[in-house]
């Protein structure tokens, strides 16, 4: 499975792969480009990845999720290149017998990808400026580039 895509992610096709006769619950997360960031109007995002390492880490993250929860399906695909407003930058799909596992695993996977996978967003604004943005800054809290504060562990 290829976890990176240089072209529009075909969500209906991925969802069609996510049905499973033992799965009563399918959860899909789509991370999409917003029209604003840092108070400025966003024109588009551009994603860069260290592809070999990103592929490997995304496969590892899905494997970790499968070891933590009983999943029938675990899919993750991240865009590279230009992603216009309202288009999908990343999609995560999980399926399991019951819904609480599918939700929990889905959050785990997206949090891990955002904090750990070597993928970077550059925001291009309508005023012509650009900014490498929204970096994981957990190191400022944890003091370690390999220790993160995950949303899925909160609340």
């Amino acid at each position, binding site marked *: 499975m290829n976890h990176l895509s240089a072209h529009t992610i075909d969500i209906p096709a991925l969802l069609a792969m996510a049905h499973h006769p033992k799965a009563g619950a399918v959860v899909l997360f789509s991370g999409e480009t917003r029209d604003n960031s840092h108070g400025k109007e966003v024109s588009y995002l551009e994603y860069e990845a260290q592809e070999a390492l990103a592929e490997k880490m995304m496969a590892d993250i899905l494997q970790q999720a499968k070891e933590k929860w009983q999943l029938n399906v675990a899919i993750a695909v991240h865009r590279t290149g230009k992603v216009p407003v309202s288009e999908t930058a990343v999609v995560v799909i999980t399926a399991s017998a019951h819904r609480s596992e599918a939700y929990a695993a889905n959050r785990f996977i997206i949090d891990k990808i955002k904090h750990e996978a070597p*993928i*970077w*967003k550059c925001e291009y604004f309508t005023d012509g400026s650009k900014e490498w943005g929204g970096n994981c800054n957990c190191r400022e809290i944890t003091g370690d*580039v390999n220790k993160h504060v995950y949303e899925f562990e909160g609340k």
Partner: protein
Amino acid sequence: MKIYTYAILKDYFDKEFIVDEQLVTVQDLNNFLSQHNPAAATILSACRYAVKDNFVTDDFILTTEDSIHIIPPSSGG
């Protein structure tokens, strides 16, 4: 050794370049690059280093044949 940089690091360094200095560890490489380009010191201290598709620690011993990928903090999603 050959260095590859990504994302915001490309505002400070070439995308690929060669380092000929005798550097023993990843920490030495980090120090060397920070001295070479002080404006990049802060971002470099937040980066991870990868060799052969694996992250390596600061005390990892480098060889002249290594390709070293310097990985800024993730901002995917």
